[in-house]
C-alpha cells in the first residue's frame, strides 16, 4: 500500500516536472534555432571550392539529458508489448537539437559562418542497471569554417 502510494507520487512528479521541463526546453530550442539559423550546419565531408580560402576549427556541442520517472515507466511497459516508444522520441529529439545548437553557439564564438562535416554520436549513460534512471548523451561536432575575403 505504502509502496503503491510512493510509486504514484513518483509517477506524478515525473510527469509534472518532465512535461514542464520538456515544454520549456522546446521553447528555448525553437528560439535559439531561429537565432542561429544564419550558421548552416552541413553534413558534407568535402569543402566546396567556393569556400576557399578559409580558416577552419573544430567545434563540438555536448548534452546529457535524463529521462523522467514517468517516461521510464511508460517505456518499460512499452518494452513488454513492443511498438513506437514515443516517450523516448522527444528525449532524443531534444538532445540532438540541443547538441547542434551548442555546437553552433561555439561556432559563433569562433566567428565562423558555416559548420561542415557535422556528425553526431548518441550514447546512453548508466546502461544495464535495473534500477537506474537512464540518461542520454548526444555529441555533435563538425568543422567550423570562417571564410577569408581575399
Amino acid at each position: 500500500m505504502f509502496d503503491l502510494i510512493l510509486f504514484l507520487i513518483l509517477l506524478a512528479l515525473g510527469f509534472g516536472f518532465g512535461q514542464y521541463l520538456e515544454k520549456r526546453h522546446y521553447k528555448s530550442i525553437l528560439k535559439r534555432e531561429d537565432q542561429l539559423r544564419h550558421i548552416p550546419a552541413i553534413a558534407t565531408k568535402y569543402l566546396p571550392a567556393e569556400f576557399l580560402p578559409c580558416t577552419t576549427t573544430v567545434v563540438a556541442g555536448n548534452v546529457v539529458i535524463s529521462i523522467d520517472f514517468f517516461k521510464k515507466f511508460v517505456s518499460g511497459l512499452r518494452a513488454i508489448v513492443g511498438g513506437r516508444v514515443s516517450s523516448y522520441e522527444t528525449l532524443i529529439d531534444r538532445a540532438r537539437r540541443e547538441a547542434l545548437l551548442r555546437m553552433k553557439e561555439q561556432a559563433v564564438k569562433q566567428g565562423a559562418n558555416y559548420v561542415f562535416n557535422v556528425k553526431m554520436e548518441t550514447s546512453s549513460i548508466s546502461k544495464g542497471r535495473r534500477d537506474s534512471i537512464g540518461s542520454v548523451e548526444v555529441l555533435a561536432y563538425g568543422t567550423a569554417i570562417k571564410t577569408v575575403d581575399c
Partner: protein
Amino acid sequence: MEYSNPEIPEGINTSKQHPLKDFFLLSFGVLGCIVICAFILGLFAERLALYIPFSVEQELMAKIELEEPAAGNTEYQAYLDELGKGLIAHMDIPEEITITVNYVDEPIENAFATLGGHIFIYQGLIDLLPNENALAMVIAHEIAHIKYRDPIAALGRGVVVGLFLTAITGASTDRYISNIISETGTLTILGFNRNQERRADEEALRVLADYYGHVNGADTLFKTFLKIEDEMDMHTPEFFSTHPLSEDRISNIEKLANKQQWSVKGDLTQLPGFIQDQAK
C-alpha cells in the same frame, strides 16, 4: 550554390500523441492481461492441485519435525484435541484426511491451517477469546480449510502464478515495472484467498450451529479484530487483504444465521478453568 538550414516543421521526429494516452493504454492493457492470465492460471492450478493425494501432503509435512508441546502445555493440547474432535464429528471429513490440532505457546494472535491436515493455534489468539464458542469458531474455520483442501490449492496456485510472474518480471529490465507486475499478480491471488476464507467461515458457522445448537459467539473474534483495527487506525482496503474485511465477515455471519434460521442467542460455554486462570 546556396547553403542554408531552413525551418523544419515540428512533429516529424516526435509523436503528437499526449503522453498520458500512451500511459493509460499500456497500463490497463498490460496489467489487464496479467490479471486475466494470473486469474486463469490460478483457477486451473487450484483445481488441479486438488487431485494431489492427501498422502503427498502428509509425506511433505513428515519431513518437517513439529515440536512436541512442552510439559506445562499438555493441558492446552488435550483440551484443543478434545474440542477439535467434537467439531470434526460434525464436519463430514473425507476418510483419507487426518486432522492434527497443534497448540503453540507464543503470544502471536494467529491460527492457521497448513499441509497434511495440521492446524496451529497460538496462545496469543486464545487470550483474545472470552469463551469456548469463539475458540470453536476459529478451530472449525481452520478445519474447514483442511476439509476443502485449501492449503494445497493455495500452494498449487502460488507456485504456478509465481512462476508465471517470475517469467514476465524477469523479462522486464525496469525494477518498478517488475514490482507493479508482481503486485498485480499477487492482488489477483488474494481474491482466491478471500473466497476460501468466506467458504471456511460459512462451514464453521454451520458446524457451530450443529455442535452448540446456536451460533452465539461466532462473531466474537471478528468483533475483537474490528476493535483492534479501530484502535490502531488500521484500515486496509479489502482489495489488498488476504482475508475479507472483519465487518463483512460479521455481517456475513448474521446474514447466514438469519437465512438458515440458526439461533444467535444461546448459552455461551465457558473456557476451562486453567485457560481462564492464565488469562487473569
